[in-house]
């Protein structure tokens, strides 16, 4: 009930458009030629708390190679970064970073609205052929490349080896096995089998891929989430929660999930390489080898997990494009990628890095590389990131048994048609 906030909310509702469409006329005509780089590069990193120390150190390493360039490292929480970047970039450019770490699904969105500099032919993409084709596919939009792949990832099933052993079960290969395993875990240890995030739509994807479906068919411009597989996917996820094989939350899902697995309150979670470092910090994993990772359980049609990852993009309005290109190249260079793998078990996007000894020996990399090779590419369209919103509206209701899978799938399909407009069916 504070007046300032109330007034802000009222004005904001009316004013959002006005502030967001101010143009920026400050061009960057002062491109310096020659190989010597100077100036400042502001880098917005979105890595999580367990990762950011390593990333900061690596980013500042750029200063050693180019003593006249100052790197301004800023850690922006992942959940806020996209909106924050859009606000800064759209309103004239002051305050926007030169280089942004973007989730793969943001790349096309930002390229579509003209905020990114195309990187083909710039030093940033000097050795394009070295990148994994899948990683590079997520960096392209309308025939141009707008990002340098930094890390690639997918989801896997994390499990507490000791708890599964105590319950006498093997890591489950599909959802039916998981249910059976969870039941035994409950009987033997009194703990819940799986923590399933209900507040993030990314966690719905393994279910729909497992049923042989997808959100959209971008080739035929058709919404497919409300077809049979999409409905079955909601039903499968719901079954896990209503049968008590899994627990979930509609808010604070990340924290609750990590607390649960770290403290040994649940035996399994579905998560990606970005969570390895954080999970290992928990008391249940004092012995690091206690953490096991297997592919996400399969559905009725087979196993499938989404391909994710992070890219490095250069802001089109950057005043220091040359240094920004060089910085993006450096942050995805073989030596930096090898270091992030060594310290954080993140997956490189360059084929050459996988032959590096420490990288090749890392069991998590071994596992996740195989998983990434099989992972399902997401629709690389500007609305890619918004697709999650509609699922998220339905997901908690489905998981707690309040919404029927059919109703949820239809609602998401309708929302997609509204979002995509045009000739989408």
């Amino acid at each position, binding site marked *: 009930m504070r007046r300032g906030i109330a007034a802000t909310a009222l004005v904001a509702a009316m004013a959002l458009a006005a502030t967001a469409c101010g143009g920026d006329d400050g061009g960057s005509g002062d491109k310096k030629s020659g190989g010597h780089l100077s100036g400042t590069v502001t880098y917005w990193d979105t890595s999580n708390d367990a990762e950011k120390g390593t990333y900061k150190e690596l980013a500042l390493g750029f200063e050693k190679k180019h003593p006249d360039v100052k790197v301004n490292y800023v850690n922006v929480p992942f959940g806020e970064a996209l909106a924050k970047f859009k606000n800064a970039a759209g309103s004239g450019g002051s305050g926007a970073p030169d280089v942004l770490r973007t989730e793969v699904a943001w790349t096309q969105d930002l390229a579509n609205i003209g905020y990114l500099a195309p990187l083909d032919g710039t030093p940033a993409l000097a050795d394009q052929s070295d990148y994994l084709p899948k990683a590079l596919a997520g960096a392209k939009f309308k025939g141009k490349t707008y990002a340098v792949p930094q890390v690639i990832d997918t989801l896997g099933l994390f499990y507490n080896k000791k708890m599964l052993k105590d319950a006498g079960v093997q890591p489950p290969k599909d959802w039916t096995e998981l249910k059976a395993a969870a039941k035994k875990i409950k009987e033997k240890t009194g703990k819940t089998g799986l923590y399933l995030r209900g507040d993030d739509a990314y966690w719905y994807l393994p279910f729909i891929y497992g049923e042989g479906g997808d959100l959209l068919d971008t080739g035929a411009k058709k919404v497919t989430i409300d077809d049979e597989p999409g409905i079955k996917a909601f039903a499968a996820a719901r079954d896990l929660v209503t049968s008590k094989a899994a627990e979930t939350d509609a808010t604070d899902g990340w924290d609750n999930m990590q607390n649960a697995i770290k403290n040994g309150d649940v035996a399994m979670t579905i998560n990606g390489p970005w969570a390895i470092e954080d999970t290992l910090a928990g008391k249940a994993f004092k012995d690091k080898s206690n953490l096991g990772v297997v592919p996400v359980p399969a559905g009725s049609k087979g196993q499938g997990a989404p391909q994710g990852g992070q890219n490095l993009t250069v802001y089109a309005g950057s005043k220091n*494009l040359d240094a920004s290109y060089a910085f993006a190249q450096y942050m995805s260079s073989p030596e930096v990628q090898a270091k992030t793998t060594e310290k954080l078990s993140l997956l490189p996007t360059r084929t050459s890095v996988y032959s590096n000894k420490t990288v090749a020996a890392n069991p998590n990399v071994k596992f996740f590389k195989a998983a990434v090779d099989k992972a399902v590419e997401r629709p690389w369209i500007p609305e890619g990131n918004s697709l999650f919103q509609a699922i998220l509206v339905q997901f908690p209701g489905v998981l707690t048994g309040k919404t029927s899978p059919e109703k949820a799938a239809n609602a998401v399909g309708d929302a997609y048609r509204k979002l995509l407009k045009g000739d989408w069916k």
Partner: protein
Amino acid sequence: MAVDTSPAMDPAAGAKGARGRGGRVHKPGTPPPRRIRNALARHWYAWAMVAPVVLVIGLIIGYPLVRGVYLSLTDANEANVERTIGINHIPATYKTVGLDNFRAILKDQVFWDRLSWTVTWTVSCVALTFAIGLGLAVLLNRRFAGRTLYRSLLILPWAVPAFVSVFAWRLLYNEKNGILNKVLHGGGIDAVPWLNDPTMAKVSVIAVNIWLGVPFMLVALLGGLQSIPGELYEAAEMDGASPWQRFRHITLPGLRSVSSTVILLSTIWTFNMFPVIFLLTRGGPGDSTEILVTYAYRLSFVNSPRDFAGASAWGVLILLILMLFAVIYRRSLRKQGEVW
């Protein structure tokens, strides 16, 4: 500059023309610049003082308002408005679509669902906040030991920034690790899904908003209570009026001018109470606690490309609803003989 100063000039000319009796009849051939110049010369300091306010209001409220109304009649979004981002220049390609946005919104069930919850949320928050605020104000209006201490303690929620309070509440509400459930567990009660069940989430957001809103009501009503002359109560007591009768026939009418204002204000604030809902539940679980403004926010800031036209249309509708409410509310007050 020119745009912003001219509205300030026009009313001046109009007011002068209406007031000055002799100036009523204008001769077409003789324009009034001399009179305006005279008026300006005489009252220049007034205009000089008003100018910054007019300028600032025009800039931060007038312009966005007009722009918002305009955008609500187009199909503008983040991808088709004009902008130059360094090396990229994108021309404007959006066009006017008339009332299409409004038609689409009013046909959409989402709008009516959000509106009905927004109304429920506003009415329950304002009614309960007012009732609790009034009760506490009456209690604190007596003389007793430690009154000042109680008063300052009750103002505390008002002193903490809203987002800090809301985050604190979010920690309390956490189903697995929150203090509320830990306390209930100690009492042998099962964990309550405060923010994870649609109904409980609605109750929870209302509770937090009441907690935030009571201090304002309390202060305003306490001020109102203190302006009611004590003799009225004494006289009523002499006549044998019961406490309830005194409350109904002296306190409530005496508070009317204060309470009608705070109810109007708090209705408008609660209707647009973005931070409580957004920070506590993000509109969830699902969209069960989403009010009109948080939905407009979702359209313009969460979905990509940002839908400026759609969000502006929602904004215009919200404004219209609130204006309609204010007009009806004023009418009903005037009927009761309230001059406001």
